[in-house]
């Protein structure tokens, strides 16, 4: 299951990182080595073992449906790369209409 630069390019697209050709070439073997070493986990991960997604057995942590103060708008827009009409301004979006 060798990872090719093309595979890495597909992943980079999914992850929205514009990797260079050099990086793609470099990353593929590096990732491959890592994946080989981590493939060892399959040695012991039998089907009947339940997965752990939390270290603690906590459940049912909720908050009441109560209002809490929002952040002041000027503060949140202050860090924006671009803002207009009290909104975050972003470049044209290609994706499909919601």
């Amino acid at each position, binding site marked *: 299951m060798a990872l090719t630069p093309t595979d890495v390019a597909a992943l980079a697209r*999914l992850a*929205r990182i514009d990797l260079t050709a050099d990086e793609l070439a470099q990353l593929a073997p590096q990732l491959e080595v890592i994946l080989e070493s981590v493939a060892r986990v399959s040695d012991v991960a039998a089907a009947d073992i339940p997965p752990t*997604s*939390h270290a*603690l057995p*906590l*459940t*049912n*942590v*909720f*908050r*009441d*449906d*109560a*209002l*809490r*103060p*929002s*952040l002041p*708008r000027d503060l*949140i*827009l202050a860090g924006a790369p671009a803002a*207009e*009409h*009290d*909104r*975050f*301004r*972003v*470049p*044209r*979006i*290609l*994706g*499909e*209409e*919601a």
Partner: protein
Amino acid sequence: MTAVLQYEDAMAAFDPVLGLEVHVELNTASKMFCGCSTAFGAEPNTQVCAVCLGLPGALPVVNAKAVESAIRIGLALNCRVAEWCRFARKNYFYPDMPKNYQISQYDEPICYDGWTEVVLDGETYRIGIERAHMEEDTGKSLHVGGATGRIHGADYSLLDYNRAGVPLIEIVTKPIEGTGAKAPQVARAYVAMLRDLVRALGVSDVRMEQGSLRCDANVSLRPLGTTAYGTRTETKNVNSLRSVERAVRYEITRQAAVLAGGGRVIQETRHWHEDSGTTTAGRSKEMAEDYRYFPEPDLVPIAPSRAWVSELRGTLPEPPAERLRRVSAEWGFSDLELRDVVNAGAVNVIEATVAAGASPQSARKWWLSEIARRANEAGVDLEDVRITPRQVAEIQALVDSGTINDRLARQVFDGVIAGEGSPAEVVAARKLAVVSDEGALSTAVDAAIAANPDVADKIRSGKVQAAGALIGAVMKDLRGQADASRVRELILQRLG
């Protein structure tokens, strides 16, 4: 112009299968994972905090009321409530999603495996409910610079995150089969029923035109007599009950044309256009986006106790099918009348109008004639016409008391819907009250008799039917503002 088959031709060859995904926006005071307000219409980006803006380091905390509402919706849909479930991250990049993942539920929905019934034309359709799960809404984008305000051709976009994080419940049906040619109506009836159900639970405003009830319609066709599912498309931007029906119908005809022509239906998301009555392709889903779901590590599992579920079961309102049986007994409608009422989605409004004092028959009359006509003209659902059940009952009361008659009532409807005020105010402002002053009536009657001597003679000689022409003349004179039967009485008295 996309090719479509005639609907009848489509039905002669194909069997439609539907899948309806409905999103309900809950009416909790605060958002799904933070304490920001969900109130509608606020200034942009004034209901945002570190959590719903997805600032680095912020963490979500689950709104208990949202969980309660999700369970109640599930119970009302006869679902099983999970003993243990988790939230999951749905990962994809989009500027209206601050974290570039949506906290949702994936393979562990809180409610699943339910069913519900939809009554249409006297037939009951049982619709399986695959799941109901919790998720958060996205922010809203304004696309600037393009011609239509839509995404294509826009120069840039402006983001408002007020709605980001508002709680949503997504309800997904199992494949809906066996509806045949009635598929579009069944789809509409299902959404209408769901809307009524959720409203009765009190957990959402469920107003489609405001976006608190959203429907995505999945449609696929298979050749008649086969069992394998065809390729389905998903249609979005279906913003009213009418649109649900029209969009499903259109997709059927479009897909039928493709298949009949030997082509292949492309699995994709399509966009419904109300103005043209068609769907257009969005981005192709042949290469389905890989959402890389995994359990949300910032939240702990939800394990609703059976005692809590039991308690919530006790808070459920009357199931729609039962309610229908009850009201039909109370109202005494004929089967056909009831069918019309259900088809028009008017059960709620009629019930409310009756509760406000009108008789069932008069309520039915007004909602299915006057108001339905206006709804159709404006292309909106019955409930979105700007008149309340109480106002309808008031108008009927004015007719019952003789203040106005049926014909004048139509003008009162005009006035109320135009926003001129309450029925009584409209009657006064437009001077629509029936003339009850006997003197004025007599004068008008005498004038009509004098102007129509031949007709008057006929009546004197016994041809009582001829009175109609005189009544007409009097009504014209009085601009319709008279009680026709009183006018008739006066005429016959004179000429009797």
